[in-house]
């Protein structure tokens, strides 16, 4: 159990460590796993823009990500290309904002790398609210998103209001990733979306167990990373990312498999 000084920061990241891997499973199913990095970059830029207007990063970041997700939905863009555009735009905006505002590059780095140790009750409340929304929505969205992926003409042929669940999922993912970017950091948010689902998609025999496995990996890696970072006085985000990378790579090395991270997405 972390020292009580770090209890709120620890609890603020905990709900996101459960929710992001579940969203990662659905993003991977849609071949949109790059979403996390695209949305996180834009969330970082929006968080920084918010800070320059004296708005907390945890509020500014979601505004940018939700706006980006809405534009993506309205433009009909699908797949990883849309998120590659977001990465480039977000990266450029972050560095230009840092260079041309009074915030300085140090603060830009803080937004990109996360400020988990400084998380307050506000971050905890927002993370909890997003997590509850996500855990309520994910089971309802999953069958619809699976159907849309496997039978893409079904919705159109039956005149179903498919835009509701596609937009709903885009917004949920944007919101969760943005809050995670502002709290845990850009790469930590991306790693929690990308790596647990990467493992679960290889190991799990069905979707239910893939969800448990991904969420369990996220939770375990988060808890372990927090403990290691505190004990060894290390920045949290790189420790979490390193742990997840090791967790993902280890079983393949142990089984003598050729490790090809690019293979099969």
């Amino acid at each position, binding site marked *: 159990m972390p020292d009580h000084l770090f209890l709120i920061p620890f609890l603020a990241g905990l709900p996101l460590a459960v929710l992001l891997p579940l969203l990662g499973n659905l993003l*991977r199913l849609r071949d949109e796993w790059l979403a996390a990095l695209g949305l996180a970059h834009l969330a970082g830029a929006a968080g920084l823009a918010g800070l320059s207007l004296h708005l907390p990063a945890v509020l500014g970041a979601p505004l940018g990500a939700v706006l980006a997700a809405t534009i993506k939905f309205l433009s009909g863009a699908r797949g990883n290309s849309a998120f590659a555009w977001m990465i480039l735009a977000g990266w450029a905006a972050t560095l230009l904002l840092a260079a041309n505002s009074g915030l300085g590059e140090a603060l830009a780095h803080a937004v990109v790398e996360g400020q988990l140790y400084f998380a307050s009750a506000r971050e905890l409340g927002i993370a909890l609210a997003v997590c509850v929304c996500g855990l309520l929505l994910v089971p309802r969205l999953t069958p619809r998103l699976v159907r849309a992926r*496997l039978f*893409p003409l079904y919705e159109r042929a*039956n005149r179903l209001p498919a835009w509701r669940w596609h937009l709903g999922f885009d917004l949920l993912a944007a919101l969760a990733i943005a809050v995670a970017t502002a709290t845990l950091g850009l790469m930590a948010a991306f790693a929690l979306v990308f790596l647990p689902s990467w493992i679960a*998609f290889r190991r799990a025999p*069905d*979707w239910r167990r893939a969800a448990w496995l991904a969420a369990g990996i996220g939770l375990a890696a988060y808890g372990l990373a927090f403990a290691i970072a505190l004990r060894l006085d290390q920045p949290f985000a790189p420790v979490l990312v390193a742990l997840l990378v090791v967790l993902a790579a280890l079983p393949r090395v142990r089984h003598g498999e050729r490790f090809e991270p690019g293979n099969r997405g």
Partner: protein
Amino acid sequence: MTCDASRHGGGALLLCLDELVAGYDRPLSPPCSLELARGEIVGLHGPNGAGKSTLLAAILGSARRHAGALWLAAGLRLRHLAQNPQRPQAPVSGRELLAWLDARALTPPPRLAACLGRRIDRLSGGEYQLLCLWICIAGDADLVLLDEPTNHLDQTHVDVAVEEITTARERRGVLIVSHDRVFLRRLDARVVEMVPR
């Protein structure tokens, strides 16, 4: 032919095409007329490139109607088996798929039931084709559109497919695109010939 639902009575007519020409930027299918009522199986037969799949796409709303008329019964529930069904590498079991696609109204044939616990990306091509076919058949659809359902199937699997489609016959209408005349004959389907434009 003019589409007249009243001739069939009781809302039995599900689909009517009257000299329908379908395509995308330009017309691709020859004019086609047919009526399909509940309890019927109609086969669209013709060589590759005859525009059979494009005609199905027009019924599904993803291809354009260039000429003729297309009539679908109001509130029609449709299921469609694509020529090459999408199969992502994902941990989704056959059983989960049946549940999520509301395809549990009928008991699956034993050969299919045996592989429902496996991930869809670990089924053989034939097993996955049978699963997708069953999802179309065992749901609540009024009209089932099947595009080359015997793709990837060996003879044993074709026998199961015939069994599956015949099971569905009484409850719904089935429109099948196929170049396999023997298969259509085994289903006792009314065949509409399509000749390339």
